[in-house]
């Protein structure tokens, strides 16, 4: 189980590296789709069908929007000469990545092994949840009953994002 997910996450890392280094922007977008659709398989393997059904639809819509934007504008990657600023950026990136890696090595010492530890709160959300909420699907019970405030905030964020998109795209520029 752990090995299967590891292999899929390895493919996701390869797709991510290709998406970052591709010369054509359209192929970079499609290689980003590799990461999203592999995530669906990972969600199915770790018994999360709700997440899988949401992720596969969201990834499709995201790809449609991104491809529409890319086909509408230029497809060439912005390559400049390798001057001092490019080397300085790459060096700073490597230093930041090394520091983060060292921090995660310390933080991972307190993590449980995969599939063995459970969160302390999980008993309260599983045992007796069907009697409390009446919902057979436990995830729906958590979303709309135990954690209704979160869903209300999420709906507000969605409305705000749509307002932002309409404000950015529908106003006339200063002529």
């Amino acid at each position, binding site marked *: 189980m752990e090995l299967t997910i590891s292999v899929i996450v390895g493919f996701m890392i390869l797709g991510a590296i290709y998406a970052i280094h591709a010369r054509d922007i359209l192929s970079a977008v499609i290689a980003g789709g590799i990461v999203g659709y592999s995530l669906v398989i990972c969600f199915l393997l770790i018994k999360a069908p*709700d997440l899988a059904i949401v992720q596969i639809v969201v990834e499709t*819509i995201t790809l449609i*929007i991104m491809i529409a934007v890319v086909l509408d504008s230029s497809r060439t990657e912005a390559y400049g000469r390798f001057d001092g600023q490019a080397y300085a950026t790459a060096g700073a990136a490597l230093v930041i990545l090394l520091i983060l890696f060292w921090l995660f090595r310390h933080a991972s010492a307190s993590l449980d092994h995969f599939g063995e530890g459970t969160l302390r709160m999980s008993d309260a959300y599983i045992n007796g949840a069907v009697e409390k909420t*009446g919902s057979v699907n436990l*995830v729906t019970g958590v979303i*709309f*009953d135990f954690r209704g405030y979160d869903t209300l905030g999420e709906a507000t964020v*969605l409305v705000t994002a*749509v307002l932002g998109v309409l404000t950015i*795209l529908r106003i006339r520029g200063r002529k």
Partner: protein
Amino acid sequence: MKGMTIIVKKTTQLIAGMIFLYGIYIILHGHLTPGGGFAGGIILAGSFILLILAYGSDFLILVRKESGSTIYENLGVLVFLFLALTGLLFGGRIFFANWLPHGTPGELISAGFLPLYNICVGIEVAASILSIFLALIIFKEEILK
């Protein structure tokens, strides 16, 4: 934006209605099977996006503004908030109180308020995604003109 060929248009006519029905099924059965308001709402928006992509500007002449979908989006959030507030009025003075009778777990009409919340969130998500896509398409049309 130009429409696609006649084959794509006919196939889209046949399929879009079924995708719409599937989205409604996912929303209504959100408390019994995997899915729910979020997934079903995006599937509903996806059926409209399929129609817009296949038909192009010929279909888009009918809906020149995105005001209709934004009205549904705001309505979804307001009804959601109103249903949560009824818990404050009639329930045990708790926000998001589930004071309707729960019924038998596993039946279609059960779980009190959860199917109603699912429907509200489904309408809201579908209208949001459709508004974003319409804004992008209308922006593109105005640039090309």
